């Protein structure tokens, strides 16, 4: 009796700690369930918008010579349809799904960086609103969602339309990067006790690889967008062929992002399938390690396919063959997953429920999309089918079959969990058949529409070419599909509002999330479980009761801390107690500063933009300041007789992993920029430039030296801090000073050694690379000062050294890029330099 009272007291306290405040306090929310649901809701809104846009397109194409939409409206609408579906629906929905579920699947109370996901949400919302607003202002992007230069350049798109795309999408991408970093650190560190990598639900593997792919895949697009926006705003010719640029550089960068993007969307969908199939087969997934291997293989190989979007640009045949071969090869990991699911169903005792119906839709439609994808990988066929309606059909089979259907299955599957209401099923079946029939009626024969000669992205077509009935049927099918989505929406709303209360674990699944309340408590787990299997609820019958009764880890609330376990990334052995942040406005404030930056850049008010950028950096530092501890704490009781250190006192804290993931992202950005430099040098027609960089050797050598001395000084500061011998302060100040010198060195190389960047792509890219190094030196200097202030305020001690160690990693990265850039930009002209 007494124990029960204690448990409910603890649960009340946990509720208080993890709750989001009411009213305006909602803007300060950081709880992963709240943020995840917000992501999914906003993404659903954008899905409805994107679908309505598609209906307008289909209405226009219903008959030849239609005057329902003019060319301007049509071009804006098809551009926005693609942009909304890719950037504002698919990716954010995945983010929301993973943010909401990952801690629940992995047995944690929240993510590693809850404030970062809140920040990501605001970036997504603001970027999305910029794009949405442009549509109502009639200046929506109209160069296609792929934004090929030079059509998207200043000369051929003089208005603000293209800038809206570049800035809006980049703003949204910030949230994707934030998500990637967050999820890498979370999946590796924030799991339940005993959950080794080999016992992680497959969803965790899928999301780990997806997050890594986002961290590596989005930087090329961000780089390309930045370069194009600089070209549009300041006339630096990165893509202008007359001044040494190359429009194909844009295509390479765009598809270097664009193809992995397809798998970034598909893998999470496969993840939910891999969660549902074992439940409905009533047994664990067979071939766990096969599926893990397939996920990793997909992650890698999907980066070797991008040129199959460029088979007609005039690249030599053998190069096309490399990409053709890789495009076919990537089908193998996907078939492996399919047959692992099939084998699981064969080995199990399948039960037939509503989500299974949607999984059939997925199987049928996605297999078809995969097979037409193999067709498109064949070079000669691609020469015919590229940029026709065949590709439109193919990509909708892949994305709707491979993403939307599994997501609807997931929606029904987890609806009882997150709404607490029972799924009835009648209307959901109607919705399925409307969607399935409508979808195939829209897209199946659209393959043929392309093969009989209809190109993509045409706003009208003449009579008599044999395209009339094909298009009319597609339009009818599209409207049937819309009715299906409407039925689905009605069913979900009806279920959430008036459904019967859900039974506990209605599908009798085996993964941890079903041990939670329906809907889950704000803190997820009353105490954190110890797991011994991939499906713990099947193998550990007492787990649920133990967790509820507080007999797991961290069952007691204390010190107003929001706690969750951090584990060793491989073994799942608990190694720290992670203190989670409470509600704060800092993510919103930082995102608002970024909004000022982006919006004023869009409107051409560059001074305000500079203020926005500086304010964002300050806000980020202020935010970082709120973390950490101001005194050393002894190891704390974690329950089960275990004593663990608090995370700011651990070497492998989540922040350390976050820094690594962030630098992986940054490094990809950097390598892509180097690729641009080398690519233009090797390929662009108007090379070499009139003159090369001319600074003498002293200045670049001094710049590199300063960067390395800064690194040395940070290293010294870390050493002094750890040993307690000698004070870290002078070393930090030296680090700041050396970073400032490195910054000055970069600036002087640009100012004295190069003509104006508008004269040639060579100058523009060299300036960009040196500017990149300078920016890093600047941040290293700021970090030196920041660490000094933290030290003074008592946030750093021999045990609490994370701030210093992170600054050292940054300085190391800065020194590395500095020496690479300086050697490259000074060395290439010496090696190959023959100015024209």
């Amino acid at each position, binding site marked *: 009796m007494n124990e029960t009272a204690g448990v409910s007291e603890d649960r009340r306290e946990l509720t208080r700690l993890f709750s989001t405040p009411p009213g305006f306090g909602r803007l300060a929310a950081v709880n992963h369930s709240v943020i995840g649901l917000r992501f999914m809701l906003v993404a659903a809104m954008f899905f409805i918008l994107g679908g309505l846009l598609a209906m307008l397109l289909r209405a226009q194409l219903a008959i030849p010579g239609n005057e329902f939409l003019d060319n301007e409206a049509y071009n804006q609408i098809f551009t926005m349809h693609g942009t909304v579906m890719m950037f504002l629906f698919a990716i954010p929905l995945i983010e929301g799904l993973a943010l909401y579920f990952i801690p629940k699947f992995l047995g944690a109370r929240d993510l590693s960086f809850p404030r970062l996901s809140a920040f990501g949400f605001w970036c997504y919302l603001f970027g999305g609103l910029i794009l949405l607003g442009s549509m109502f202002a009639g200046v929506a992007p109209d160069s296609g969602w792929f934004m090929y230069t030079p059509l998207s350049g200043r000369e051929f798109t003089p208005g603000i339309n293209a800038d809206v795309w570049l800035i809006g999408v980049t703003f949204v991408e910030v949230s994707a990067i934030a998500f990637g970093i967050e999820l890498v650190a979370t999946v590796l560190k924030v799991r339940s006790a005993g959950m080794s990598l080999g016992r992680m639900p497959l969803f965790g593997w899928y999301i780990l690889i997806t997050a890594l792919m986002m961290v590596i895949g989005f930087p090329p697009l961000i780089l390309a967008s930045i370069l194009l926006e600089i070209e549009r705003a300041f006339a630096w010719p990165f893509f202008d062929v007359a001044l040494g640029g190359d429009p194909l550089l844009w295509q390479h960068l765009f598809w270097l992002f664009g193809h992995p993007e397809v798998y970034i969307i598909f893998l999470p969908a496969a993840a939910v399938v891999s969660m549902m199939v074992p439940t409905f087969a009533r047994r664990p997934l067979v071939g766990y390690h*096969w599926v893990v291997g397939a996920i990793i293989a997909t992650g890698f190989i999907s980066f070797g396919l991008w040129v199959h979007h460029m088979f007609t640009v005039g690249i030599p045949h053998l190069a096309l063959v490399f990409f053709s071969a890789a495009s076919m090869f990537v089908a193998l990991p996907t078939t492996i997953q399919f047959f692992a699911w099939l084998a699981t169903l064969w080995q199990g005792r399948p039960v037939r429920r509503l989500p299974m119906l949607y999984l*059939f839709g997925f199987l049928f439609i996605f*297999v078809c999309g995969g097979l037409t994808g193999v067709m498109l990988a064949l070079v*000669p066929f691609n*020469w015919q089918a590229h940029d026709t309606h065949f590709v439109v059909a193919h990509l909708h089979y892949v994305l709707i079959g491979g993403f939307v259907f599994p997501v609807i299955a997931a929606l029904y599957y987890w609806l009882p969990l997150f709404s607490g209401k029972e799924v009835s099923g009648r209307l959901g079946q109607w919705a399925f058949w409307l969607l399935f029939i409508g979808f195939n009626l829209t897209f199946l024969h659209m393959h043929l529409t392309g093969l009989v000669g209809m190109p993509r992205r045409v706003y009208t077509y003449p009579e008599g070419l044999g395209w009339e009935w094909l298009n009319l049927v597609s339009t009818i099918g599209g409207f049937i599909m819309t009715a299906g989505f409407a039925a689905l929406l009605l069913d979900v709303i009806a279920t959430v509002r008036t459904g019967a209360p859900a039974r506990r674990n209605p599908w009798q699944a085996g993964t941890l999330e079903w041990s939670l309340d329906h809907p889950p408590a704000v803190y997820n787990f009353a105490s954190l479980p110890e797991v011994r299997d991939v499906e713990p609820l099947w193998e550990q019958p007492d787990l649920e009761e133990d967790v509820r009764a507080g007999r797991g880890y961290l069952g007691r609330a204390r010190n107003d801390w929001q706690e969750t376990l951090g584990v060793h990334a491989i073994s799942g052995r608990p190694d720290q107690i992670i203190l989670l942040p409470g509600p704060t406005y800092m993510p919103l404030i930082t995102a608002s500063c970024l909004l000022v930056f982006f919006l004023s850049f869009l409107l051409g008010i560059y001074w305000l933009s500079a203020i926005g950028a500086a304010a964002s950096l300050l806000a980020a530092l202020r935010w970082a300041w709120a973390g950490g501890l101001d005194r050393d704490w002894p190891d704390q009781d974690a329950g089960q007789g275990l004593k663990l250190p608090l995370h700011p006192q651990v070497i492998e804290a989540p922040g350390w992993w976050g820094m690594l993931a962030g630098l992986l992202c940054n490094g990809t950005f950097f390598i892509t920029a180097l690729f641009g430099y080398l690519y233009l040098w090797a390929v662009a027609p108007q090379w070499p430039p009139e003159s090369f960089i001319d600074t003498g050797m002293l200045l670049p050598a001094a710049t590199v030296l300063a960067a390395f001395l800064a690194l040395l000084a940070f290293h010294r500061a870390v050493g002094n801090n750890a040993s307690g011998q000698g004070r870290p302060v002078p070393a930090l100040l030296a680090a700041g000073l050396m970073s400032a010198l490195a910054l000055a060195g970069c600036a002087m190389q640009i100012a004295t050694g190069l003509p104006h960047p508008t004269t040639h792509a060579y100058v523009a890219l060299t300036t960009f690379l040196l500017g990149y190094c300078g920016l890093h030196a600047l941040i290293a200097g700021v970090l030196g000062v920041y660490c000094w202030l933290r030290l003074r305020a008592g946030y750093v001690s021999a045990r609490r050294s994370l701030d210093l160690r992170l600054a050292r990693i940054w300085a190391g990265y800065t020194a590395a890029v500095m020496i690479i850039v300086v050697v490259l930009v000074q060395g290439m002209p010496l090696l190959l330099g023959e100015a024209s």
Partner: protein
Amino acid sequence: MLVAGCGEPSVSALAPAGEAASEIARITWIMIAATLLLMVVMSALGLHAVYRRSDGPVGPSPLAVILAGGVIVPTVVLLALLIFGVRSGDGMLPVGEAAVEVRVTAHQWWWQFEYRDAEGQSIFTANELHLPVGEAVDIVVESEDVIHSFWVPALGGKIDAIPGRANRIRLRPTETGQFRGQCAEFCGAQHARMAFDVQVHAVDDFHDLIADMGGLDRSNAGPTAGREAFEQHCMECHSRYTARDHEGPNLARLPERRWLGAGTVSNTSGNLREWIAGHQALKPGNRMPDHSALDDDTVEALARYLEEQ
């Protein structure tokens, strides 16, 4: 099947009239058949896995399922396809000498074609491509502004027109007749109306035609009023002399063309008059300055001048 009715030019990749297109159409049908077969098999397997009669585990061991279905079968199928694709693609490349070379320059939103006559003099036409049957023809594609893509589905694959580059594609028509070509890469406001007329002739007819086109000069044809109006309103961008490379489409062979405005409307006398003054209504955003202020007499004079052979 699936080909447009009589009178209309063929636009379909599945009704090939060229060597590359035939080869691709053949592999297309094979792949479609294989795709349908595999879809039936996969759906049947999926349905069987769930709607089978027996309640307990069925089928071969999981490892065998994954290995056979996930690795071995797809490897065999894909490898065969890949090897076939490499050979087939290699055979379509523009290797060795071509009998005829046509230079194509894509503009927003029309096509310029440049031939050489026997003396090597350039001949310019717009939106009409003439080819000899049975001969290897190299099309060299360039762009004047943004990226476009040259595509005649009945003859072969497509190749992009990219600023700063000259891309080459080899076509070898196997049948005479009329075909429709069009831009396949989104290129702005009027991407939809950037088609061209392709006519494949017997070899002798082709050479006769080129000889006729060479040096064709209709600048001084027809009534004076029309000529003067042309000089006043059109000559900055257009010419009626095939040797002249102008900013706008060459109009020397306008009377022989099937369409106006790169496939916007058919070339009838009524449409020509409507086009001259109302081209911005017919093809909004096209690069020709607005001429809606022209009075009816000027339009009539211009039309007569342009129709004059």
